[in-house]
């Protein structure tokens, strides 16, 4: 072997080690999350029955405004609003924000709920597009429909925040289904730590494959579509493992836009949701962390696994690609917008763990992993790296992936047991193995596409065609 060959081997080995190290670092982060999530679940009080919660808290629950932005949801809006109005909570208001829909969303609402124009004094605390009108109904006093010029989801949520008069608001997607007791469960941390609690996120679960009747999930099932099934495993990993773990150590940076409860005064203090972004949910939480730490305030932002919101996920590659690209672009936008928080001592754990996690998992991770898929087999085939390098790469990408996914299922089964049938568990275990061969890699490609779009300054949302819940 001559000198240039030695140099080539050394360079190849160094490149392979870099890829393996980043993969290993990612897995160590997941492993830490797994341990923290297991500890959190072990110390979480038993899931109490709704009746117990009602008996204990109904006298003292603070009022909540449920803000649901809607855009072109004519087909599903009536059932979704009915489902929201049927929530079990002593004192709540539903603020449905029609964000300049171009279909018959507003007309359908007016006709079905017998809405009439109303006026309401409100605080213009955060920015949004002009309102076109407010509508209320004598038959549904809890419902306020806001009609406004189109401005995007963040803009619509801001309008809802301004019109809300309660100390807490809950942001949800109009096409999601909240479990009847979700507000009661989500509000619990605000009741138990009213001084410090700023925001609470709940679990999002996948409704594809479940039986839906009258706007409620009446029987939990699993999707028949493999793409949706992979997402079930992914959501369990994201919520039951990642968010619970970061919540436990006070570094939760994401509360899903599909279901989160916030203290209005602090959301207003940070200017509400940032308009013109695609990751407005992540950015709001990061802004809250920044604000509270800048002000030197003692605060908590928590994830609680029990309040559940059901959502429909894409069942086609095209729709999923759009969604994931958008999500990742949102993460990158937030990361780079608040990059001064990365490793900044002033932001403590948020700067080191929260932003460090985003750097490793969202920014560097996908690039290095995709590089690895191309580079490592080629280098091994060219005999520039050893079999050990190849096996180590397979270990950190595929095999550890199986371990992490199956462990998150183990947590789910040990603590929550949400899937009623043994056959569900078998299918999910299979999905947890198979998702590492193909699905994971394609996800990384979407992340790279998101990076490319971000660098080119693309901030489009892209359309999300809903197939609609299969209902009884």
């Amino acid at each position, binding site marked *: 072997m001559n000198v240039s060959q030695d140099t080539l081997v050394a360079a190849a080995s160094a490149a392979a080690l870099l890829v*393996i190290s980043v993969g*290993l670092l990612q897995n160590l982060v997941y492993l830490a999350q797994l341990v923290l999530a297991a500890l959190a679940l072990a110390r979480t*009080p*038993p899931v*109490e029955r709704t*009746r*117990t919660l009602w*008996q*204990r*808290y109904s*006298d*003292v629950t*603070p009022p909540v405004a449920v803000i649901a932005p809607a855009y072109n949801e004519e087909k599903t809006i009536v059932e979704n609003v009915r489902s929201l109005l049927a929530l079990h909570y002593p004192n709540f208001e539903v603020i449905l924000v029609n964000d300049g829909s171009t279909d018959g969303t507003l007309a359908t609402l007016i006709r079905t709920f017998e809405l009439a124009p*109303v*006026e*309401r*004094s*409100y*605080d213009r*605390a955060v920015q949004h597009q002009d309102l076109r009108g407010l509508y209320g109904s004598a038959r549904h006093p809890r419902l306020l429909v806001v009609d406004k010029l189109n401005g995007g989801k963040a803009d619509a949520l801001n309008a809802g925040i301004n019109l809300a008069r309660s100390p807490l608001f809950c942001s949800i997607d109009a096409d999601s289904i909240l479990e009847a007791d979700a507000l009661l469960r989500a509000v619990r941390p605000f*009741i*138990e*730590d*009213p*001084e410090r609690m700023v925001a609470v996120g709940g679990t999002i679960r996948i409704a594809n494959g479940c039986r839906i009747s009258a706007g409620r999930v009446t029987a939990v099932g699993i999707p028949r579509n493999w793409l949706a099934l992979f997402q079930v495993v992914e959501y369990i990993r994201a919520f039951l493992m990642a968010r619970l773990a970061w919540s436990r150590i006070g570094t939760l940076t994401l509360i899903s836009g599909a279901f989160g409860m916030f203290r209005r005064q602090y959301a207003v203090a940070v200017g509400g949701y940032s308009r013109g972004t695609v990751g407005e949910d992540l950015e709001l939480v990061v802004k809250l962390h920044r604000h509270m730490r800048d002000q030197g305030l003692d605060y908590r932002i928590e994830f609680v696994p029990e309040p559940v919101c059901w959502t429909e996920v894409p069942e086609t590659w095209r729709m999923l690609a759009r969604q994931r690209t958008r999500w990742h672009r949102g993460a990158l936008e937030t990361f780079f917008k608040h990059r001064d928080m990365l490793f900044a001592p002033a932001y403590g754990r948020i700067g080191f763990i929260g932003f460090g996690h985003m750097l490793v998992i969202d920014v560097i991770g996908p690039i290095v992993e995709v590089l690895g898929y191309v580079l490592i087999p080629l280098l091994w085939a060219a005999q520039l790296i*050893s079999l*050990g*390098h190849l*096996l*180590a790469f*397979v*270990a*950190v990408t595929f*095999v*550890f992936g*199986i*371990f992490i996914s*199956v*462990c998150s*299922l*183990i947590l789910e*089964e*040990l603590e929550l*047991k949400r899937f*009623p*049938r*043994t056959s569900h*568990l*078998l299918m999910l*275990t299979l999905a947890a*193995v198979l998702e590492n061969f193909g699905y994971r890699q394609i996800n990384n490609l979407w992340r790279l596409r998101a990076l490319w779009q971000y660098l080119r300054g693309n901030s489009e949302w892209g359309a999300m065609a809903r197939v609609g819940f299969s209902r009884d």
Partner: protein
Amino acid sequence: MLYHLWTASMALAAASLLIMAALIVARLVRNLRERRLRERRALLIGTVLGWLDGQISEQDAIKTWRAHQEVLVLLSAELLSLLRGDEHARLVALFETCGLPALLRRKLMQHQRAAALLAAENLRFFPGPETSAALTAALEHPYHEVRLTAALSLAEQNQAPDVRELTSRLEVRGNVSARVMTALFRRIAPQQTDSLWALCQDEAAPPLHRVMALDAVATTGNYALVEGITRVALNATGEVAAQALRSLGMLGHPAARPAVEAALASPEFAVRVQAASAAGRIGLVDMADKLAALLADDIWWVRYRAAEALAELGEEGRLRLRRAMADGQGAERRVATLVLAEKGLR
């Protein structure tokens, strides 16, 4: 090292799959047990209904329930919550004959959180000296949910200890929130008005305790307290003053006028908000000009509550709102216009 990574990952993945396989088997067993539990529940419910209708004898009912006491513990609160009057009393008596309260008292003292919690909740249906003693002892339980539930059950049976003792015993280990304590204070307010009132006036007590006590005494609707709460509102600051005004608004007695009038000019916006609301709820028409002045306050909540109060004051208040709508500027005009429209008064 690289080969170790491979071996370790394979071992971990295999171990996780083995554990999952064991859990799937455990789930099979569990599903079978749950099916049996559902069958027993159905049997017990059927027995209750049959016994209430006179189709099943008391001896047979007792025999069935004694055979399935663990299921009965889970089911008893549900059944007792559904029934009222004579049927409720008969069922309580029968459960006592079955020995359910004694079983619940034993479970209450266990360190198993779920069982103790269920027992603390269910014992509220079985008042008596032994239950009171057990629930009082449970105020020292290691889990705060159990302590709190025991306190709520004691309050329901009018057996709660004095408010100061209760506060210190519940808070001694932390974890009990102000909002939950507020619910408890409200429940004991009818029996312990004097103790709560003493706490309201105690300037050495933690402000949060005074706030909760002020809220609770207002729920009794006792006008004899108006004068005292007015004094508290005049002398206190911050959250205590704001709560005193809120309580005066809840009581709705015009004797609160001096405190409301002074608070409308408070430098603290939270106090001005509560004063404006109280003026409206009490119907202090002579405060209309002062409320009208607050329509131009810097804080939206003060402007809004002042406008709402003016709308509640009848023609005198509405006149001020219409005047602000016609002649006012900026925020003052906007809040007057929108509140008049909102209340259908424009």
